[in-house]
């Protein structure tokens, strides 16, 4: 059912700013041309992903194309679906013949036509048959007015046998009526009045009021920002023309209509703090709990906009505030986790995320709503302050960002009727499920998938230390696969040694080398397994620095590169380089070389005018270098990341 709206949602992912607002601005509805173009778009096979889209009711599309000419060129303010309830109830109660097949239509809509492809295609005919119903159904919720009219205008028994085309043409006339202009309309209205019951009239009235409001709102919106609106309109219409839009989708839209402004604000990607913007930084610092001493003189010019490295001296300042109550009441558990981020005692997307969830759990358990406050609001504010504390310790990882987002969403959706204890336990269980499902079980699933890709005689290369890759390798070893591992490491953190130690302890054959020898070692490698901090919507893999080099070399040698990554780390953002968003590490970490005391050339580097040290933490691997991404939902090519985002991560959009 979700993929029913596949093409439409796909667009939303690519261009998240475009929201389905539910009405079209006057003057932008460009009649036939617009319709045909939009329907052409729909037909275009470039829907971004190999998802299983159920066979669309193909009859509808050509029908729409055929009947587009009679479409009025007048501005079409499609009424919003804000007052949906009265007419719906009315539908149900109403004994008009339309209602008689309503349930059937509902059934099809409620069942999932695309749960399997075969099923969907077997239902194809049925869908085709029912498409008028669906369109009418659509109308019922989207354009109350038209529904009313269609019911009373059409000789009802005939309508069932009518072709889709008729229904659509019927629908197409609707907008003109919505404007309530012209004598024809008046006549119809009068006719309606004669024939409708009290409840019906009331519903009608309400829908008219809603239509008017919508017209007003659309005018306002059009003034505000016309260009995206246009896209919206075509989108909207496309949905109407072609797809039997599922109920849940409609519900989404209804919600959006209720709070369009707020929603937009929330959904627009918050502009990230650019750390070379002095005013903003000063402002942020004033709000910060800890005074940021990140005024490092020796910034690298290209990376001035990134949050600067938090020096370990900050640790002492932070620790001293530990037990003081005035620092915005940071819960001790969260405080400890923050300090561990700062000292890099907890590293890695999964570990940091799990630690944060655990700390939040503690915090929720100790939480009591202050008097005169609503739990969900107060808790959201509290979480915000805690999160900002964590991000002063170390910039948040994308995995944490996603976890926080889902948690805040959960808080926002708490019902007021719950008692505090119930709400708390539901939040705690949400945190537990998140850690369990999205991280632990997901890892198990990834291991299951990935192990199938290792065959006897393989030489597997990995870079740095990814806990999932470690699990994959050790599991493959434990089920008796014969393979060799090449651990490629890079300074200054040398995390690969942790992996090396654990693999050696399990009796795996290993080779250890540094990233500068990767071109040499790649000749004997047959597969590359890498971890990721995040995978972005364009398939870019955002991971520990060095990953891109390893992947590129592997690509050059035609060695398949497989990325193991849980889907909760996926992100809608698109990033083409590792400059616009990254994290700076400790520049002093580059100064010394372990075991080489005589290497002291860089000591005192910060006194030099002309020298800057740059220690980046992440890099971006272009999707071209990635053969496959192994997720808990299966193995997908990097081009399918948007599909995963769309299909499996719908909560944030709701």
């Amino acid at each position, binding site marked *: 059912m979700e993929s029913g709206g596949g093409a439409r949602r796909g667009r939303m992912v690519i261009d998240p700013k475009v929201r389905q607002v539910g009405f079209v601005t006057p003057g932008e509805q460009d009649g036939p041309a617009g319709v045909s173009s939009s329907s052409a778009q729909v037909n275009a096979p470039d829907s971004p992903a190999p998802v299983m889209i159920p066979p669309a009711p193909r009859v509808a599309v050509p029908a729409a194309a055929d009947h587009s000419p009679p479409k009025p060129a007048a501005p079409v303010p499609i009424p919003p679906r804000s007052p949906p309830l009265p007419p719906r109830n009315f539908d149900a109660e109403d004994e008009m013949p339309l209602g008689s097949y309503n349930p059937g239509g509902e059934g099809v809509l409620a069942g999932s036509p695309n749960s399997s492809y075969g099923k969907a295609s077997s239902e194809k005919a049925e869908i085709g048959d029912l498409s008028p119903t669906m369109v009418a159904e659509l109308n019922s919720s989207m354009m109350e007015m038209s529904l009313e009219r269609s019911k009373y205008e059409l000789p009802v028994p005939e309508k069932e046998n009518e072709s889709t085309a008729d229904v659509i043409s019927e629908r197409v006339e609707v907008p003109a009526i919505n404007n309530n202009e012209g004598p024809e309309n008046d006549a119809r209205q009068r006719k309606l009045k004669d024939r409708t019951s009290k409840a019906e009239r009331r519903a009608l009235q309400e829908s008219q009021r809603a239509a008017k409001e919508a017209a007003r709102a659309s005018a306002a919106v059009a003034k505000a920002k016309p260009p995206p609106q246009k896209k919206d309109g075509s989108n909207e219409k496309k949905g109407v023309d072609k797809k039997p839009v599922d109920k849940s989708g409609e519900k989404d839209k209804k919600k959006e209509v209720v709070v369009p402004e707020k929603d937009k604000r929330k959904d627009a990607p918050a502009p990230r703090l650019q750390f070379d913007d002095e005013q903003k930084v000063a402002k942020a610092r004033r709000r910060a709990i800890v005074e940021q001493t990140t005024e490092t003189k020796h910034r690298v010019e290209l990376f001035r906009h990134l949050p600067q490295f938090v020096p370990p001296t900050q640790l002492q300042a932070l620790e001293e505030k*530990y*037990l*003081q109550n005035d620092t915005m009441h940071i819960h001790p558990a969260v405080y400890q986790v923050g300090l561990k981020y700062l000292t890099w005692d907890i590293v890695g997307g999964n570990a940091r995320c799990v630690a944060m969830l655990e700390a939040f759990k503690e915090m929720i358990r100790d939480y009591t709503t202050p008097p005169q406050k609503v739990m969900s609001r107060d808790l959201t504010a509290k979480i915000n302050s805690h999160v900002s504390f964590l991000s002063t310790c170390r910039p948040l990882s994308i995995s944490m960002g996603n976890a926080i987002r889902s948690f805040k969403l959960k808080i926002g959706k708490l019902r007021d009727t719950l008692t505090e204890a119930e709400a708390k336990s539901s939040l705690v269980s949400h945190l537990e499920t998140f850690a369990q499902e999205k991280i632990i079980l997901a890892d198990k699933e990834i291991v299951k998938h990935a192990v199938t890709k290792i065959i006897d005689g393989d030489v597997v290369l990995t870079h740095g230390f990814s806990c999932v890759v470690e699990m994959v390798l050790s599991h493959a070893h434990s089920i008796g696969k014969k393979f060799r591992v090449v651990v490629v490491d890079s300074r200054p953190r040398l995390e690969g040694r942790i992996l090396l130690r654990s693999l050696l302890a399990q009796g795996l054959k290993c080779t250890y080398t540094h990233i500068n020898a990767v071109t040499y070692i790649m000749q004997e490698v047959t597969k590359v397994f890498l971890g990721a901090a995040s995978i972005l919507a364009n398939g870019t893999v955002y991971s520990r620095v060095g990953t891109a080099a390893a992947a590129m070399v592997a690509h050059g040698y035609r060695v398949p590169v497989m990325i193991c990554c849980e889907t909760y780390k996926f992100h809608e953002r698109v990033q083409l380089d590792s400059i616009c968003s990254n994290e700076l590490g400790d520049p002093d970490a580059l100064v010394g070389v372990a075991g080489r005391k005589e290497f002291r050339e860089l000591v005192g580097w910060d006194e030099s005018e002309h020298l800057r040290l740059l220690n980046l933490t992440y890099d971006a691997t272009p999707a071209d270098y990635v053969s496959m991404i192994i997720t808990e939902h299966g193995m997908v090519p990097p081009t399918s990341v948007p599909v995963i985002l769309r299909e499996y991560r719908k909560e944030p959009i709701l």
Partner: protein
Amino acid sequence: MGDEYQVVVVAGGSSKDLFPLVSKDVPKALLPIGNRPLLSYVLDLLEDSNLNNVSVVVAGHESGVRVGSWIAEAYHDRLQVEVSTVSEESGTADALRSVAHRLSSENVMVVSGDMVCDVPLGAIASSHKRQRAGLTALLCPRTPGEGCEASAGGVGTKEKAKQLAAADVIGLDSARHRLLYVASGSQLGKEVKVPLCLMREAGQVELHTDLLDAHLYAFNRELMLEALERNEKFKSIKRDLVPHIVRSQLKHGRVEGTLSCSAYVAGKARYCARVNTIEAYGDINRDVAGDAIYLTGYTVSGMNNVIHPSAQTGAKTAIGPQCIIGEGSELGEKCSVKRSVVGRHCRIGSNVKVINSVVMNHVTLEDGCLVQNSVICSNVHLQERVTLKDCQVGCGYVIGVGAEHRSEALAKKEKV
């Protein structure tokens, strides 16, 4: 927030080191420092850090009663303090054993009651918890000249030399996070023995004598109680318990990434001192009246001194900077007070000079007295033209007309 820690304050009793300043009437905990009882500095520090669950252990029954009544009066609405007493002879480890049944939190902080310090305890608590340590000790950098400068007690130079020799030897790793070796100077023979396994574990051990063990430890409760239980003969926390835990830190099941014994080295700007000798008492009083005045919470006047509004001074009387004059004290004409602390309700006649000294409450100094580098306890009466240099005068002592004393400890006969 502070619920995760319980605090044990070992307040001591009437310590012999501080004779004749302390007695049964004035236990060490109530010794005035800048006109405030010594214990109040520790309790205020605890209160600042939201460590509200405090047990105070006092040696000696009488002292216990006095400390208890004072705490009940001063802190009844601020801290949850329980005062218990142990016998005079018992050591600090015994004090800890006596309150062991009351401890229930995961970590216990043990504080010496004679500490005057502004290191935020949260820092130690946090460091302890972050490293999941079994023991965290607070170490303060020793100021270079400490113990060598002119001291109030006027104890002989030999003793001073002894004092220096008694500096603790503390072994840390290169990052100054791990505590690898502790020995107090007095115990120390000619050699320092660091277990080889610790050397191997840490790679490098730095031995410090420039760090002061502030006698503030955060313990893992179970670890501490087990060590106390197994070793019945442990008397002192610092001399027996802590070195034992440090020595055997590898034996306790160590989790990867945690430290069994860690050290928190306070920043150089922090003040930390202990009132364990008479000269330290004089020094701390002067510090508190001077640079560390913020510890007392008094507001400093433009003259860089603190004079209680109810104190009266006669004509031509000069009170220098870094002085504290307590409530209701009266000074006559042509007096001079320099770098000294004068307590409450003292009556000082004309032409009296008080320099570098501590004068406690209800002291009478008649005309023409000269007090230098001395400590004068409560209710002492100096008759006319008495000269005191480097002396300590015990409570209630009366010195006759025109007497002159140098480097003496004067106290009532029956107490000697």
